[in-house]
């Protein structure tokens, strides 16, 4: 698979480490969210067959985190964004 890095261009997926569902960005506040919400965040997944937004880390590159939109049935990648931009668009400050 080739990941079209928004800054570095086409890169082999082998340079990256895979973390999982993009929803991992949305970590609830551990002090207020309650155990059920935190459990759901940490352990449960949609795991769709089809479009999946997921976190890849460019470990052997510029060390950026990316949100890759990829089809889990065909492995086709349709969109690549910097995770920083995605998180900021969701209102996160860092």
């Amino acid at each position, binding site marked *: *698979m080739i990941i079209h890095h928004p800054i570095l261009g086409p890169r*082999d*997926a*082998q340079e990256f480490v*895979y*973390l*999982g*569902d993009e929803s991992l960005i949305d970590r609830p506040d551990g002090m207020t969210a309650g*155990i*059920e919400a935190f*459990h*759901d965040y*940490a*352990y*449960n*997944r*949609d*795991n*769709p*067959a089809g479009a*999946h937004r*997921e976190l890849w880390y460019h470990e052997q590159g510029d060390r950026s985190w990316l949100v890759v939109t*990829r089809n*889990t*049935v*065909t*492995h086709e990648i349709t969109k690549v964004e910097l995770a920083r931009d995605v998180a900021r668009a969701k209102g996160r400050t860092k």
Partner: protein
Amino acid sequence: MRYSGFRVIKEALTGHKGWKPVWHDPTPQADYDYIIVGGGGHGLATAYYLAKEFGQARIAVLEKGYLGGGNVGRNTTIIRSNYLLDGNEPFYEFSLKLWEGLEQDFNYNAMVSQRGIINLIHTDAQRDAFTRRANAMIMHGADAEILSREDVRKLYPWLNFDNSRFPIKGAIAQRRGGTVRHDAVAWGYARGADMRGVDLIQNCEVTGMRIENGRILGVETNRGFIGAKKVGVAVAGSSSKVMAHAGMRLPIESHVLQAFVSEGLKPLIDGVMTFGAGHFYVSQSDKGGLVFGGDIDGYNSYAQRGNLPVIEDVAEGGMALMPAIGRVRLLRAWGGIMDMSMDGSPIIDKTHVEGLYFNGGWCYGGFKATPASGWCFAHLLAKDEPHKTATAYRFDRFLKGRMIDEKGQGATPNLH
């Protein structure tokens, strides 16, 4: 029809005209007491034991494709009970004991071969960890031995013992481990279930669930609605898709695992060998092919095929361990979809829907579990309480902090 030596001779003398198809092809009835979704190893074993051991009737297995076309026919056929943790080891040892009597039990040749398995050791720390594991195994009634470097050399003198990164220092061995003809396991259970009146319904995909007032009434399929008092789901890599019909999000990700077979060679490897540090494991089939594999590809996937980087990684691991295979040609490569759970261990449990039960999260190791998984799931379905070896396989273990994490990796399914 029972199989026996006498029967083979009789058929040989009468032109093999007496062999019949080993299961029927029934049309679905309007309703059943039990519906098992998924005609893989686990679903078929569940139906078989429900009928045979728990005396239940009016059972159907619904399979979206053909029986045994999923992971049960795609795995590398290794059986073993070499786990460390209390939640796992009694269950896998129960499974190994069932394997030992399986062929007599279902009167079918599944080529259960206890050729032994070794896991290689490269460091003192690893020897300590494997010694601890061996002790845990022995305490649960399994067999385990620690082999020295010289013991391993006697088994396989042609291994690369002096790899500079991972020199071989010994191994943990389980002599009762081995391999089983995977397709024959599906066929044997299917035949045994069919003989006991179970309806095996192929080309029947579950597309929805009818749930009213918190109770399951049956399943929607491409062949219409089929009612049931109880529904047990055992669909391996499709777990999240099917349980979504009941509004559930599971602690599971689907990942692709690849495996490989080489051209046929003369006898080289008697047993099963794993080189965990090098992401490589291997055995040799009775036809002579080296059957081997390594890690999962590592990203969510429902495609039953993987990518080249893992093929390269596995081949490098193989070459590091066994330089002698350098000119052996690869015959086939394939993939299957693994239901990777958040702690690397399975779930056999009730759900929040009354009458709906779930069996999944087997990761890359559910073939060896097939007999015990079927038995324990049948136990749960028939008696509404877990079998004593499967009490830890609960959904709520993640909420309660009782993970069964053999590798200590945490909630990262691609690392288990």
